[in-house]
């Protein structure tokens, strides 16, 4: 399928999902409240630690920047497709989609983008309120290049997270129940992505390991760009890892679906 046609299909599917999702805007407002409240509580805890007057890898401004921007970044990079995909494969709901002239994954992309388009305007005012509350310590980058890099790493982070879920969900071609695996991915993934504690505050001995694991590139890396903690080489290495995970997971997805669809048809579904 040509790139232009793929884009057109994704655009249409996104528009459809925007309309469908509008129904749930009330529910989403509540989700967005939690999306903002959780990081704010973490921030208050770290500010209480900072008030003890101890030396920390982050100063107050970095904590505020990290946790205020965490909610937007986490929302924009979130995925929820894993269990839906696994169910579609397990119950044979995939079959009608296989007859359509576009890959199944594009529907999931459209759903992901469509929901985020509805969520963003609900989330931004809440983030604005938190930002105003912490305005004295909030220090967002003034250099437009930092924002450009953030905006570059954001879709890459969303892609890594999306493909990770897609790959795990695809295991349903062979494994009866992948929900346990998805649950571990959610819990451990959030922790290792810096959802609760910024990775820069993990013990120093772990830094090599933390930099190599995929979850950093689903959330932490764009935030690290905004806190201004990365040197030029660290930035380049980060983007290389992020792009590498995108390509690697994409290849894995293609491979899994090639063999998975055979296993699927063999099951007679």
């Amino acid at each position, binding site marked *: 399928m040509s790139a232009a046609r793929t884009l057109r299909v994704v655009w249409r599917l996104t528009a459809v999902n925007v309309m469908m999702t509008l129904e749930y805007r*009330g*529910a989403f407002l*509540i*989700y967005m*409240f*939690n999306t903002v*409240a*959780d990081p704010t*509580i973490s921030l*208050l*805890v*770290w500010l*209480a*630690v900072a*008030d*003890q007057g*101890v*030396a*920390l890898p982050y100063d107050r401004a970095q904590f505020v920047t990290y946790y205020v921007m965490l909610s937007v970044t986490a929302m924009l990079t979130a995925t929820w497709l894993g269990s839906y995909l696994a169910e579609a494969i397990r119950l044979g709901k995939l079959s009608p989609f296989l007859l359509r002239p576009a890959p199944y994954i594009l529907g999931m992309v459209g759903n992901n983008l469509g929901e985020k388009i509805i969520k963003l305007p609900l989330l931004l005012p809440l983030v604005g309120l938190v930002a105003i509350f912490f305005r004295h310590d909030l220090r967002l980058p003034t250099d437009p290049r930092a924002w450009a890099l953030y905006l570059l790493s954001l879709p890459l982070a969303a892609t890594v997270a999306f493909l990770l879920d897609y790959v795990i969900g695809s295991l349903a071609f062979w494994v009866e129940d992948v929900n*346990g695996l998805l*649950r*571990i991915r959610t*819990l*451990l993934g959030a*922790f290792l992505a810096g959802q*609760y*504690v910024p990775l820069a*505050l*993990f*013990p120093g001995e772990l830094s090599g390991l933390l930099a190599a694991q995929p979850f950093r590139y689903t959330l932490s890396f764009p935030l690290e760009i905004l806190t201004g903690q990365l040197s030029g080489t660290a930035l380049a290495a980060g983007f290389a890892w992020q792009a590498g995970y995108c390509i690697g997971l994409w290849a894995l997805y293609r491979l899994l679906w090639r063999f998975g669809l055979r296993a699927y048809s063999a099951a007679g579904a």
Partner: protein
Amino acid sequence: MAGWESPAPQPRESLARQVVRHLRVWRQFVVMAFVREAEYRVNFFVNVFDGVAQLALAVATFLLIYQYTDEIAGWSRAEALMLVGIYRTVAGLIGLLIEANMMAIPGYIREGEMDFHLLRPVSSQFLVSLRRLRLDEAVNMAIGLGLAIYAGNQAGVRWSALGVLEAAAFMLCGVVLLYALWFATVTLSFWLVQVDTLDQLFFGLFETARYPVTFFKGAVRALLTFAVPVAFATTFPTQALLGQADRRLLPVGLGLAALGLLGTRAFWNHAVRHYGSASS
């Protein structure tokens, strides 16, 4: 149908007999829960594992925080971990007794099952609030208690019957208050179709119980003490065990809990009177 008529007057029954009757019904809920759990054994272990994983991550978060300091707002690491254990215990208690029920109530109303619950000769609030038990949460509760005792020993707690009793009383207030808050929210589903998502709000707020309220200042602390009473569920019980609780707060908590129960009862009865049933 224009709403539920009050049931035909029953011969007056003493309060003690009513309590005994309800306890007997509750025993039956427990028996049923065991039967159900025996059907889904794998699910049981998955849920326990999930609880353990969540607790491990909460502990890891605190260990990361306490790398940098020995004390936060007067709480040592062992004391904070003790609170995490208490948090897990309370979360387990809520999961065991009420969580599954709160999540089921909007469905009863939407799909008409509520009619059957209203016809039964026990308090409908009692029935819908407690009929489902999640036994796997009892295991998570025990694990939480284990952590609280272990960390308590490390914190040098001198265990006393009075302290444990005081902690249990605070915890009871906390659980009752959280129940009242959640149940009042769920009661709204007599009028609103989509309140299920309000559960998410409740879970989000309850998450804050993982931290001592004294970590927070001013408005946030007041909010978490009185508006969203998580302080009664975790911070005050831990302080009671550490011998640092403000005893004046115990009657406040008991009063608020009683008020919460009476308030939800009045609200629920009001809602039921205006219930038109999904099938009529």
